[in-house]
């Protein structure tokens, strides 16, 4: 395989893994539920999207055929991540999940 293409695949893969790990670290160490919500919706989505892209390029380079399933996975992840975050935030506000002491402003539930 072309060495430049190989480097692109490797960089995309490792940066995707790093983003996924950052999302998980955020989920594990942030202080309250609402701030924990940020890490998986942004970092993990981008991380897995990057791994998907690297898999797509890898199979297109090795087989020479179009690899479109990964594109579908990526689009689906990016479309659904904000929706599930929104549903979880609504559920948490309904259950009055504790917010951190230093939070500015209030959650309203109606």
């Amino acid at each position, binding site marked *: 395989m072309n060495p430049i293409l190989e480097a692109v695949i490797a960089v995309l*893969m490792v940066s995707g*893994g790093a983003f996924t790990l950052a999302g998980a670290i955020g*989920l594990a160490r942030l202080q309250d539920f609402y701030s924990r919500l940020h890490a*998986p919706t942004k970092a993990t989505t981008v991380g897995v999207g990057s791994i998907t892209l690297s898999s797509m390029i890898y199979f297109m380079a090795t087989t020479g055929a179009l690899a479109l399933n990964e594109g579908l996975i990526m689009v689906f992840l990016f479309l659904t991540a904000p929706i599930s975050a929104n*549903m979880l935030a609504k559920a*948490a506000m309904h259950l009055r999940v*504790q917010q951190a002491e230093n939070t500015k402003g209030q959650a309203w539930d109606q």
Partner: protein
Amino acid sequence: MIAIALKITIVMVSLAVALNVYRLVKGPDAPDRILALDSLSINAIALILLLGISINSRLYIESALLIAVMGFIGTVALAKYLKRGSVIE
């Protein structure tokens, strides 16, 4: 080069899975656990894709697609259950 990158990435995603399981066990509230389950399903997609690259086969890509769909539906159903007390009204 890809082989080394693959090993590094699998280690990082596995660490992410371990941290997600920590949050799943610790909680403290139900939304936290659902969020951890959602992240676990997304990490499972990443692991399946990495498996596909490492054995050079596209056999498992469709299961990754199914996990993406089912993980989303599961998260939405659980969140809706917490908010309303029922999934389908």
